[in-house]
């Protein structure tokens, strides 16, 4: 594959696409697939064949369009988007392809949910067919890789990433450029690149969507990373619970290999790179980088103390670059447009955009990508459309089991790494769950503690025993049988876990408890002192309200 050949593929793809005047895009990402979008696509195909329209109209299975709750979603080139499309709607959709859009099914695209987004990572989602590499190449795909290989030295690539101010999208926000240059400087016979696609936070599905909608973007990001740090082998550690993402990644890897974009002497240069998948097996702790490495090595996923950091001693004891899916997905546009371009978006310390999985008690649930620095209020009330059923907003949970619940009075805070940490939560990988007055904050804290307890790997005592004890104490509170000493003990355990646990799982496990205790202290008081749950969720076992 030479730059000219890539350009040729791109042009012939664009020509082939422009020959077909009409196109109907059907979302075939996991959300819409589970509402039978595949049969909608089949019905459209059948109808097109029946009418003999093959030369004029084509369907395309595309990735996530974002508004998952309204699926199956279908869009046409007339810029109309349809929601809740059924098999029976196929003829009508085709009838309207030349004229006015079908009022009955229309999903307005001028609402803040669409207009307030700033799509960089998701720029191709909902537009390209994830299973065709040509479609990706037609939209400048792999152009950044070619640029890097033919025009830039590894040091220049790292410099560009550093200039962009990109920080790790897995949650901790470590500067990506710095990580890359550490791995590049580390001495080792071989180096590895690992993509963390073990999206374990409950309530988060950003990485899944990126992998299902635009897998080549992640491969391209990894290739550029491999070139920059001097690695020739990469692994994608992906959850076994995401069968569709795995299937599309396998297809993407095969296609890239066939075109010589993966393998030996890529684009006629001396750069070799191959990518392999490793399936996770359902362990939340494997999102922690040293545990992930152990798992890729075929062992139990238990973390180890750092340093040495994986950048020095990682996979198989060699220097390893580990980044999250979304981080790698940001790389191709950074190379294409330059580091300064990304640095212009966002806040002073948090650059670019962040993809959030908006879910819970909110009108528009789905996937949104916003510039760093928008406020939580804009996300929840404008993009999310507010709370349904006339209920009142209570909290928004970010960062999953390592994050916290943020109350109404911080809604005007800009979303960036520092502000969220200051408010008692974390950016996390991007799960954002809205809760209304029907949720009890103590119950939510117990939910997360139960999760951390189950997912604790058991290696270090503070986490193994501490999460168990905290879960027991929270259980006492939610069964309305706790007293003041239990609260004191809970506080003490929070400090203990934070300061003495081995890895992030244990260190951050108290966050949901601490953040709810701080912002919703009155709920804890009602449970402990008055023996009642203000939200009506918790019940005393002796006196069940709803037997």
């Amino acid at each position, binding site marked *: 594959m030479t730059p000219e050949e890539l350009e040729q593929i791109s042009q012939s793809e664009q020509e082939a696409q422009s020959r077909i005047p009409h196109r109907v895009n059907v979302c075939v990402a996991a*959300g819409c697939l589970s509402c039978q979008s595949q049969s909608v696509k089949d019905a459209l195909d059948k109808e097109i064949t029946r009418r003999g329209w093959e030369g004029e109209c084509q369907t395309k299975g595309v990735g996530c369009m974002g508004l998952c709750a309204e699926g199956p979603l279908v869009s046409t080139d007339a810029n109309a988007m349809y929601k809740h499309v059924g098999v029976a709607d196929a003829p009508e959709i085709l009838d309207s392809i030349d004229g006015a859009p079908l009022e009955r099914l229309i999903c307005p695209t001028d609402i803040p949910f669409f207009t307030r987004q700033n799509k960089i990572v998701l720029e191709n989602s909902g537009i390209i067919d994830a299973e065709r590499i040509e479609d990706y190449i037609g939209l400048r795909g792999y152009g950044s890789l070619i640029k890097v290989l033919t025009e830039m030295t590894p040091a220049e690539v790292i410099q560009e990433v550093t200039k962009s101010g990109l920080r790790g999208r897995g949650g901790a926000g470590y500067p990506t450029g710095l990580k890359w240059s550490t791995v590049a400087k580390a001495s080792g016979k071989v180096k590895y690149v690992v993509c963390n696609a073990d999206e*374990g936070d*409950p309530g988060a599905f950003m990485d899944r969507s990126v992998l299902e909608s635009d897998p080549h973007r992640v491969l391209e990001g990894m290739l550029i990373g491999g070139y920059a740090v001097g690695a020739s082998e990469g692994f994608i550690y992906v959850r076994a619970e995401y069968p569709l993402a795995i299937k599309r990644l396998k297809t993407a890897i095969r296609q890239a290999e066939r075109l010589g974009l993966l393998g030996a002497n890529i684009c006629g240069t001396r750069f070799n790179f191959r990518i392999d998948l490793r*399936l*996770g*097996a359902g362990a939340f702790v494997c999102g922690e980088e040293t545990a992930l490495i152990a798992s890729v090595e*075929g062992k139990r996923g238990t973390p180890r103390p750092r340093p040495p950091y994986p950048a020095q001693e990682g996979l198989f004891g060699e220097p390893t670059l580990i980044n999250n899916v979304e981080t790698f997905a940001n790389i191709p546009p950074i190379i294409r447009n330059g580091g300064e371009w990304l640095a212009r978006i966002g806040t002073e310390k948090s650059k670019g955009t962040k993809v959030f999985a908006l879910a*819970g008690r909110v009108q528009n*649930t789905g996937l949104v990508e916003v510039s760093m620095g928008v406020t939580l209020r804009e996300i929840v009330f404008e993009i999310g459309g507010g709370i349904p059923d006339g209920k009142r907003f209570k909290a928004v949970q970010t960062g999953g089991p390592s994050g916290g619940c943020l109350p109404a009075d911080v809604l005007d805070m800009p979303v960036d790494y520092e502000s969220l940490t200051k408010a008692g939560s974390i950016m996390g990988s991007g799960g954002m769950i809205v809760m209304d007055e029907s949720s009890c904050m103590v119950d939510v804290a117990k939910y997360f503690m139960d999760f951390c307890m189950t997912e604790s790997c058991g290696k270090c005592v503070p986490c193994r025993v501490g999460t168990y004890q905290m879960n027991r104490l929270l259980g006492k509170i939610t069964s309305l049988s706790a007293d003041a000493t239990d609260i004191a003990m809970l506080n003490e355990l929070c400090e203990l876990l934070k300061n003495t646990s081995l890895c992030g799982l244990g260190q951050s496990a108290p966050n949901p408890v601490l953040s709810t205790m701080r912002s919703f202290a009155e709920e804890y008081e009602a449970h402990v002192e008055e023996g009642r749950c203000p939200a009506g969720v918790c019940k005393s076992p002796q006196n069940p309200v709803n037997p």
Partner: protein
Amino acid sequence: MALGVANVFAKPTPPNQDKRWRLVDATMRRLGQHPRGLIETLHTVQEAFGYLDKDALLYVATSLRVPLSRAYGVATFYHFFTLKPAGEHTCVVCMGTACYIKGAPQLLESVQQNLGIAPGETTVDGNVSLLTARCLGSCGLAPAVVYDRDVAGKVSTQNMRERLAQWRAP
């Protein structure tokens, strides 16, 4: 089943004539018969046979030259691996955060009563296994339930009962 000193270096033979062992062998070969292929191999076994039994673990452990204790440790550490065969049908209730606050606990309680089993168990007649998931990533459709391989969104106790009744029907 004890391993004699003499045959430790011999290539172990599969527990039986089942052709699915060829898939397992292929995975081990692809990963160079190396201990680091343990998890991938166990994935293949589970995909082919549905679960990991003692014979399978022993075969994989000896083939990859890892102690049986380590193979067993890995198999029990990860939630995805199961040591028991599943029922004819599986019902997975998602307990992710979005599903949790949208009523997954009530769904789970209802299905437990309906089937008379706890999560992780299979009905006595081997018809239905009940499982919970940490998060399916279908949060936009919360609460979500997976019936066999079909993900269903916005599930209510009512339509869940109806769906289960279809499986229970003779």
